[in-house]
């Protein structure tokens, strides 16, 4: 369910791009932290999962070595913070042999030109 109309209009929401996989580093967790805090401050937030960031959405993740919590519990809190626009790069999924059926949350899949349009439509973005 892409939403081309939304892509085309200029947008005050903060776009947070998540490019790192879970567990291996804290990039993903600290990016989601920024998303949650921004939403808590009453500003709209959207997430784009690009590159290895799509692994964040993979089903069946668990706690890691030495009790490392991972980021899947954090992602489950997005809805509570009204963060509901989750965009995913089609290229990123395809290159990793994944489809939306492999993901733990409903997402909107974007083609490459739509990704560029998404970036262009947002006045501010952060990459993690």
């Amino acid at each position, binding site marked *: 369910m892409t939403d081309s109309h939304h892509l085309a209009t200029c947008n005050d929401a903060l776009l947070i791009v998540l490019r790192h996989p879970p567990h291996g580093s804290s*990039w993903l967790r*600290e990016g989601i*932290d920024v998303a949650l*805090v*921004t939403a808590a*401050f009453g500003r709209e937030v959207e997430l784009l999962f690009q590159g290895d960031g799509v692994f964040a959405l993979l089903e069946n993740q668990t706690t890691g070595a030495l009790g490392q919590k991972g980021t899947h519990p954090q992602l489950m809190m997005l809805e509570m913070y009204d963060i509901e626009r989750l965009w995913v790069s089609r290229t990123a999924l395809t290159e990793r042999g994944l489809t939306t059926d492999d993901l733990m949350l409903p997402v909107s899949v974007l083609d490459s030109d739509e990704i560029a349009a998404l970036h262009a439509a947002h006045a501010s973005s*952060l*990459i993690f």
Partner: protein
Amino acid sequence: MLSYALLVHAAPYSTQGSLSALRFAEAVVARGHAVKTVFFYRDGVHNASTLMAPPQDEVHLGERWRRLHATSQTELLVCVAAGLRRGLVNQAEAKRHDLAMHSVEPPFELTGLGQLVDAMLTHDRLITFAP
């Protein structure tokens, strides 16, 4: 005149990111703009350590940040959650966590992520310096 915020993720002395952020800040000021806020996140928090003692023939990053504050009144904000995990504590946090020492002093301030959100909303530009 534009107001700038910088977001620094890069650890000092390990990657070029902190140096790049500093020289960019100095170039912004030289062009007559204002660097209002530097927000240190992730390993960038180590830039705030009062305990760094680099060799004399290398740039002292802590001193250079303090000089930026002194000449340009730049806020030097350190994410408290990222800092506490990594050993960056000021006197108040040290007391609260029962630590005999501290590693962060003014003009560096420990603050929440909300200050980053605030900086994004209030300044004209946000530039990120990553590792």
